[in-house]
């Protein structure tokens, strides 16, 4: 008995290490190291061309100095609005589209699926530029289209007005990414076995009530995943705002989100010189916000979600 135990013990499984090493090395060098280095950089500042350790002073400036904190809270508030629009518009529309697409008698389903998904693979630069042209008061087709149906009074230079610009950009982003929740929900709707739906049908649950009572509870985990992906994506967003409104996120910072605030601070803009240390402080704050959000989801929501064995 004792002999067999000692016999098995010293065996090192080299193949595991060999197969894991490349991935661990690459991931550490391009993800983990830069992440921790950014967190470290946030604790430094520059005086007379010298890097000096200043502890939490950058964060004190970021949250304590009215000039910085006003910008930070503005960007954070805008970011929440950006996220709110996505949750309110993108995900419900994604679910509805998926539900329609999964209908067995829908014709040209594959065509619709591709058409709706295509914007997702477009570059932000193309999307930003195309929508800027569509909505342009001078060359755009939006004013003339509204004019054609007698609704010209509804038109406004949306991207140039403080009160509409952020919502407009959020909706452009929704247009671009609605394909992602649609595809994920569509996949999980297809995964629901027909037997369950047939059994429900025998019990008299069909049509809409089948969706609400059978399908929705079964796709709830997918909706959770989509929400968290949307959250992370939105709080890391930068590209669309930058291509459409520039680094100053105009008009009057009304479309400034954390990503553009970080860019402006880190790399500088026009006569404003870049400050990598304050930039890192903002990046660290963004990291903390996303981490808190993901933790709330993981521990607060996902563990309580009921899962059904299909």
């Amino acid at each position, binding site marked *: 008995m004792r002999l067999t135990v000692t016999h098995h013990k010293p065996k090192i499984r080299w193949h595991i290490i060999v197969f894991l090493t490349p991935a661990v090395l690459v991931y550490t060098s391009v993800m983990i190291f830069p992440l921790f280095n950014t967190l470290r950089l946030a604790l430094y500042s520059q005086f007379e061309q010298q890097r000096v350790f200043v502890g939490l002073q950058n964060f004190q400036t970021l949250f304590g100095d009215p000039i910085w904190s006003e910008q930070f809270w503005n960007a954070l508030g805008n970011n929440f609005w950006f996220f709110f629009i996505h949750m309110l518009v993108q995900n419900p529309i994604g679910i509805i589209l998926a539900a329609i697409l999964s209908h067995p008698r829908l014709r040209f389903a594959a065509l619709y699926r591709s058409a709706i998904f295509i914007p997702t693979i477009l570059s932000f630069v193309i999307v930003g530029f195309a929508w800027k042209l569509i909505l342009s008061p*001078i060359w755009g087709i939006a004013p003339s289209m509204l004019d054609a149906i007698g609704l010209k009074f509804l038109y406004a*230079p949306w991207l*140039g007005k403080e009160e509409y610009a952020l919502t407009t950009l959020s909706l452009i982003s929704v247009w671009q990414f609605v394909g992602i929740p649609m595809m994920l929900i569509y996949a999980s709707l297809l995964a629901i076995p027909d037997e369950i739906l047939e059994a429900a049908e025998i019990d008299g649950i069909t049509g809409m009530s089948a969706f609400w009572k059978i399908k929705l509870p079964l796709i709830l985990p997918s909706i959770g995943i989509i929400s968290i992906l949307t959250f992370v994506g939105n709080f890391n967003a930068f590209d669309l705002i930058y291509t459409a*409104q520039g680094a100053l996120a105009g*008009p*009057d910072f009304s479309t400034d989100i954390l990503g553009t605030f970080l860019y402006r601070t880190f790399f500088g803009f*026009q*006569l404003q010189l870049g*400050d990598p240390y304050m930039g890192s402080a903002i990046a660290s704050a963004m990291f903390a916000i996303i981490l808190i959000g993901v933790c709330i989801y993981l521990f607060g929501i996902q563990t309580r979600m009921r899962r059904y064995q299909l």
Partner: protein
Amino acid sequence: MIRKTLALALAGTALTSTVALAQDAELTIESWRNDDLTLWQEKIIPAFEAKHPGIKVTFAPTAPAEYNAVLNSKLDAGSAGDLITCRPFDASLALYDAGHLSNLGDMDAMSNFSDVAKSAWQTDDASATFCVPMASVIHGFIYNKDAFAELGLEVPKTEAEFFAALDKIKEDGSYIPMAMGTNDQWEAATMGYNNIGPNYWKGEEGRLALIKGEQKLTDPQWTAPYATLAKWGSYLGDGYEAQTYPDSQNIFTLGRAAIYPAGSWEIAGFNTQADFELGAFPPPVQNDGDTCYISDHTDIGIGMNAKSDNPEAARTFLTWVASPEFAAIMGNALPGFFPLSKEPVNLEDPLAKEFVSWRDKCESTIRSTYHILSRGTPNLENETWGASVAAIKGTSSPDELGAELQKGLASWYAPHQ
């Protein structure tokens, strides 16, 4: 005999090696002037290469709004070009302080420039000059001469005449009175505030007093331009809030607008784009006979990357840039960029001539926010963009804007504390 061949062979290798060395020198110019790409490629660089065979020059511009950020990253990473086109004042001073630009003060050719021209690229004590001054740009208004003739308008001299002309164009309705948008923000500050402002703060007098802390941004001469800008809003086209800088350029060159608040750098582009006659007038003064002030801004210099692999070739290029030959080529190849060399350059372009003629009639100054005042955070120049837009849109009153800017400046600039 043997000795002779050996000597010949040696001379031969020496010759080939120098030729190889000379051919090796390739210079890359970093610039934000992507509009001038063809002019550099077709006129300026060939003229240099014809005189200096063996040095190959490449002009590699970046988009203007990204230039500073991209350049800083490239310099930090050590991948920037040999020659750096210099923004005036603090942006370049910071590059020099960080050791990215070489001191060019010892170059003989520097004596071709006046002290004012060099001041944009010197340390505060003028002990080091790190860029060769290339050109300045002058602000004013470009107008559609055909439209003015059609509507029977005179070129406005005073502000009252200016707004009367705008009213008349608006009333007629066939032209947008003024082509400018607020989407990109900088036009409002550069072609708006800093264009008309010098007439209010009396050019250098006000600018220097502001730097010394003797005047404040809340003083009437600094807030009044915002009140004037507030009147502009109703003369800009429909949806000007979302109109971008290229939109404005296109609207004007397509002949849809009558007046364009301009910088002289537009001349080359407008000459090729517009098929109507162009005229220009300086910013109108308040009362007829007042001294006029123009923004004649030292805008472009060129310096050397301290880590350049070809410092000799780079210096050769810079010496050539400082020569009257370059000034003549550039002044005429890029009408609207006025050479800063002491020796006057004969310009051919009528519109450029009109702009440069204001130097004799009016007092020159530079943009108020560029020298020293944009060193801190918040950055006065960038803040002025937002303030000018807010003034045009009418979202804030001139006094509120002055107070806001003053608060920002006083937060880091000692003479205002």
